[in-house]
């Protein structure tokens, strides 16, 4: 029998800027929440191995930070290592843990992720994040990540005609969701009042078409999740959440290399055919510089493993990687929530809003819950876990964004400008 992998617990230490606690203290808080919620975990005896997730040595001025965290959490001499892949770091850490348990090497694997980005001023943080672009080509021109993603969104707008208002609607949805989330940076800094499209337009332009409220926050925070084998899961909980599919995919480091990319040519002929007759048609019309091929590849792999052929019908909600609002719109297409070019229709019809057929980002995600890189997808995974086990109302002290009876959810994460992507499908037992 194949060894199924369960989620049996976890915790979050809230996202904010700044958090004055040390990195290891925030991680300890997340682990304490997990232990407080699940007295069946015999800590540290039940932890067989740990995967650590953090993005940047530069932001902290500290290499091998996980050695500090690991001993701080009292987990010596257990096996542990760090995963790093930009924004994909936390989802890769989760997938690493999944594969470890699948392999039978370890039964229970703890994933701990964090980031502290507040020690430098915002332009310096932008500089250090941009060090994850090609520093011989993209970085010296001054685009930095908001710029790289903005040129991709400009291209998608040019081809498929979504407007700045569509992007603003995504921002409104996510910020308003975050006002209910007690772990969210937006709620900490701006309170619980809702925003409107007009508020988005009034926020500072960052790189057209993105304004401040369309962009990921710079955050501190931590999260952890405990994954267990089918054999050991029942010791921890009567209501595990199963990981039924995982997927991984990659695309070019430099976004500008995607126009004629031979590796994608013909892979998705239907999406290539939905391409307007423009003067700048490329030799590789999908994804080129408009969509995210790595997300398509990772999504398809996860769907196949989980037996999903109609994501909108078969998924109850999703937490996507949304550093900028156009990314969320393109992801709807790349993850097959709709056809290529129809992401704007999902936005306009409210399909991904609270109450829609496939709510996305109930946590608020990157632009509103916050984006401490190494923790982000783990915290989103925890919000999925709480939704699928119907703990959200209790955790959030409100039913405003708590689903009832949700069976299946998708988590997607990626790094760079979609240079690598991961998808995980979670299902309640």
């Amino acid at each position: 029998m194949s060894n199924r992998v369960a989620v049996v617990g976890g915790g979050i230490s809230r996202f904010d800027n700044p958090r004055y606690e040390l990195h290891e203290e925030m991680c300890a808080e997340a682990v304490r929440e997990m232990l407080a919620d699940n007295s069946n975990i015999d800590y540290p005896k039940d932890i067989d191995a740990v995967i650590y997730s953090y993005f940047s040595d530069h932001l902290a001025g500290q290499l091998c930070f996980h050695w500090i965290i690991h001993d701080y959490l009292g987990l010596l001499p257990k096996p542990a290592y760090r995963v790093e892949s930009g924004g994909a770091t936390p989802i890769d850490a989760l997938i690493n843990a999944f594969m470890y348990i699948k392999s039978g090497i370890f039964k229970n694997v703890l994933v701990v992720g964090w980031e502290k980005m507040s020690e430098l001023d915002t332009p310096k943080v932008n500089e250090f994040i941009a060090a994850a672009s090609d520093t011989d080509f993209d970085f010296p021109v001054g685009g930095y990540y908001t710029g790289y993603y903005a040129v991709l969104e400009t291209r998608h707008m040019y081809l498929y005609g979504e407007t700045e208002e569509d992007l603003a609607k995504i921002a409104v949805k996510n910020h308003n969701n975050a006002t209910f989330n007690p772990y969210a940076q937006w709620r900490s800094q701006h309170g619980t009042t809702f925003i409107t499209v007009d508020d988005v337009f009034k926020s500072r332009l960052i790189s057209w078409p993105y304004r401040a409220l369309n962009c990921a926050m710079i955050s501190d925070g931590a999260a952890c999740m405990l994954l267990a084998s089918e054999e050991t899961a029942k010791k921890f909980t009567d209501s595990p959440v199963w990981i039924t599919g995982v997927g991984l995919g990659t695309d070019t480091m430099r976004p500008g290399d995607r126009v004629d990319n031979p590796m994608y040519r013909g892979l998705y002929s239907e999406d290539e055919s939905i391409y307007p007759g423009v003067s700048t048609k490329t030799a590789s019309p999908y994804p080129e510089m408009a969509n995210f091929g790595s997300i398509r590849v990772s999504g398809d792999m996860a769907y196949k493993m989980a037996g999903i052929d109609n994501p909108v019908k078969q998924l109850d909600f999703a937490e996507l990687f949304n550093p900028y609002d156009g990314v969320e719109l393109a992801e709807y297409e790349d993850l097959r929530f709709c056809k290529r070019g129809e992401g704007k229709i999902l936005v306009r019809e409210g399909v991904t809003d609270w109450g829609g057929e496939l709510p996305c980002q109930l946590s608020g995600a990157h632009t509103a819950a916050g984006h401490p890189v190494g923790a982000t997808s783990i915290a989103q995974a925890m919000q999925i876990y709480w939704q699928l086990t119907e703990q959200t109302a209790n955790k959030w002290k409100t039913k405003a964004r708590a689903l009832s009876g949700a069976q299946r959810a998708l988590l997607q994460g990626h790094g760079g400008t979609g240079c690598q992507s991961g998808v995980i499908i979670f299902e309640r037992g």
Partner: protein
Amino acid sequence: MAYKPKKIVESLEYNKQWDEWARQGNWSPVGWRWIEGPKGYRLDKLSTTNYLVIQRPHASLYHHSYGMTSKFFKGLLEKKLYGSKCPKCGSIYLPPRAHCWNAECRLEETEWVELPPRGEVHTFSVMAFSATPFLKTLPFIIAYVRVEGCCTTVPTRLLKVNPWDVYPGLKVNINFVEHPKGDIMDIYCTPAETPDPSKRIMSSETIERLKDDMRKVKEWVVRKFGSEAKPSIEI
């Protein structure tokens, strides 16, 4: 390697004061604050406590080799634009690749070709904020430009055009700065044709908003950097 090459063929030697500047800071505190701040893992469970916050600077100087793509960057110093071409499949790369990435070419080594200083905008953004090194030149336009004959696009600054007059397909010239330094910023683009207003991708409402944004960004840059401010967009 960077310190003791076999032979220096030609050079622009750096000001050796950079060795000292790169040791500035040295991770040693230059100041501190004893502050009151929040403590707690959730917003509904916060208390107040004290934290010591220190200021700790450091700097570094990288001796970076451009490897097998060095001829491209040496070309920039000489105001020549080179791309790399695969002798097997004929693909021309800018940014250059020393090895072809077409699977059937099995990482064949490429050859250098001189490229025409012309291309077209594939996509672009109007930058109103950026990373530390680029703040003084805000606002500016970055454009990913496909140089004639190339199978990739290269990021460049696009100058001497209003942001709303930029669209995918706009023909541009590649220009060299007066004093090249040996990085990709040695080239910039300017329109090679009068922009066609019927090809604009911004609505009139967007353009009005953008004009207001540009004004605000310029004010911010001038306020922050005074006479050192060099906004790249003239309106």
